[in-house]
């Protein structure tokens, strides 16, 4: 069983990895010394403690175990002090990371029994796993950002649809009419003084038809109202329609003499 190994930080890095533990110690403060007034840049540069640690490992070939914890902790605390001003939450995360590093270090330094080594996972393993997972996502984010992106890298064609200037008329179906009726009747029921009569539509339809006929010809002989081809039912309905029209004062029926011709006249508007 071999412990996990962090791959060379940057395979493309030309210089050999510094193995002397003193070397990274010199570099880190140089690279990471951030004057307080440049704090925003610092916060902008690193996404958090994982990112910072990854940077230290990758750029400076930092061996996690080589980090002099006292010094690193001191550095971290400096940053934490700076961050406390307005980024308390972030400061806490850096602090937690420092604590974790110290814990790892201390556990590595403790003598272990053989059984412990066999059973217990390497204290660094979890940190390494997290670092690698973070690094994986960091790279993925970068690649994602390099994919062509709508609006940023290309525009979507969208031309106008030319429409004829036809006015669209609302459609009505017979259910709409029935619903309208129900609404009217519901109201009518509330206002009981309205008398809503129920009758067959056929008579109403014939009433309209008789009036229509009278519109073209001012006066009709009563018998002309009845088509010879009409069925008995039509004759009856037409007759009822004429009676109803007369009752509603929609037409006038006149007969000048007994058994004479009965005339049906439209109401004279003029």
């Amino acid at each position: 069983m071999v412990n996990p190994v962090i791959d060379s930080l940057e395979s493309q890095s030309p210089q050999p990895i510094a193995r002397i533990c003193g070397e990274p110690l010199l570099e880190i403060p140089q690279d990471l010394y951030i004057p307080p007034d440049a704090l925003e840049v610092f916060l902008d540069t690193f996404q958090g403690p994982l990112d910072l640690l990854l940077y230290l490992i990758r750029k400076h070939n930092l061996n996690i175990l080589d980090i002099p914890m006292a010094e690193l902790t001191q550095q971290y605390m400096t940053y934490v002090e700076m961050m406390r001003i307005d980024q308390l939450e972030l400061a806490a995360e850096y602090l937690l990371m420092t604590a974790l590093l110290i814990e790892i270090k201390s556990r590595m330094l403790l003598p272990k029994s053989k059984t412990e080594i066999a059973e217990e996972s390497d204290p660094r393993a979890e940190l390494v796993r997290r670092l690698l997972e973070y690094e994986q996502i960091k790279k993925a984010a970068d690649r994602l950002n390099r994919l062509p992106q709508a609006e940023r890298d290309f525009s979507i064609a969208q031309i106008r649809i030319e429409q004829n200037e036809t006015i669209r008329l609302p459609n009505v179906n017979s259910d709409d009419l029935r619903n309208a009726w129900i609404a009217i009747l519901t109201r009518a029921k509330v206002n009981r003084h309205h008398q809503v009569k129920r009758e067959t539509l056929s008579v109403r339809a014939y009433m309209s038809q008789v009036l229509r006929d009278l519109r073209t010809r001012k006066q009709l002989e009563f018998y002309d109202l009845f088509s010879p081809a009409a069925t008995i039912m039509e004759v009856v309905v037409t007759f009822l329609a004429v009676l109803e029209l007369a009752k509603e004062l929609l037409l006038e029926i006149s007969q000048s003499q007994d058994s004479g011709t009965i005339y049906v006249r439209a109401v004279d508007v003029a």
Partner: protein
Amino acid sequence: MSAPSTSLNPITLESLNPEKAKQILEAALLATQEPLPISELRKLFDHELNNAVISRLLEEIRDKWRDSAIELVTVASGWRFQTKPEMQPFLEKLAPQKTPRYSRAILETLAIIAYRQPVTRGDIEEIRGVSVSGSILKTLLARGWIEEIGHRNVPGKPALFATTLNFLDDLNLRTLDELPPLDEMKSLIEPDNHNQALPFTETDSTDHKGNAD
């Protein structure tokens, strides 16, 4: 499937030739719904091309597209691509326009005229319990769904309205009898019989319907 050469060499204004310029104009016009005036299009080339040159290029683009489904047109505020009008029936199948709906007042008026014709405006107002604006009747008259078929012989001689054949056609009905029956409204209406001005009973009307067909 070799990549077009244009994607390999970035276009610069220095390497601009008329073909490239036309491509850029096309891209801008195809990606923009609003008309683009020439003054705006000149920005594409950092104002290095003058109005006359751009106008000429636009004319060439217009000619090039003449036989396709879309056309480059010039309108008051500039140039734009649009689909040709004959494409509209097809495009409507993708996004059927929402058909407007008639207001409740119009529908109720129409229902009253359909079920109670012939009626005067006064009848409608009495049934609806509110006044009926002239615009409602005008709308229905303009639609060709109702017509004046006479006048009631009462003071003022008010016009009588009835539905038209056109109304039946538009509603896919052959006769008024095919309108939904009002039977189920019985519960809503006064169940007394003395109001029934006409002798027809339910069964009669059914018989009649059968005969009329």
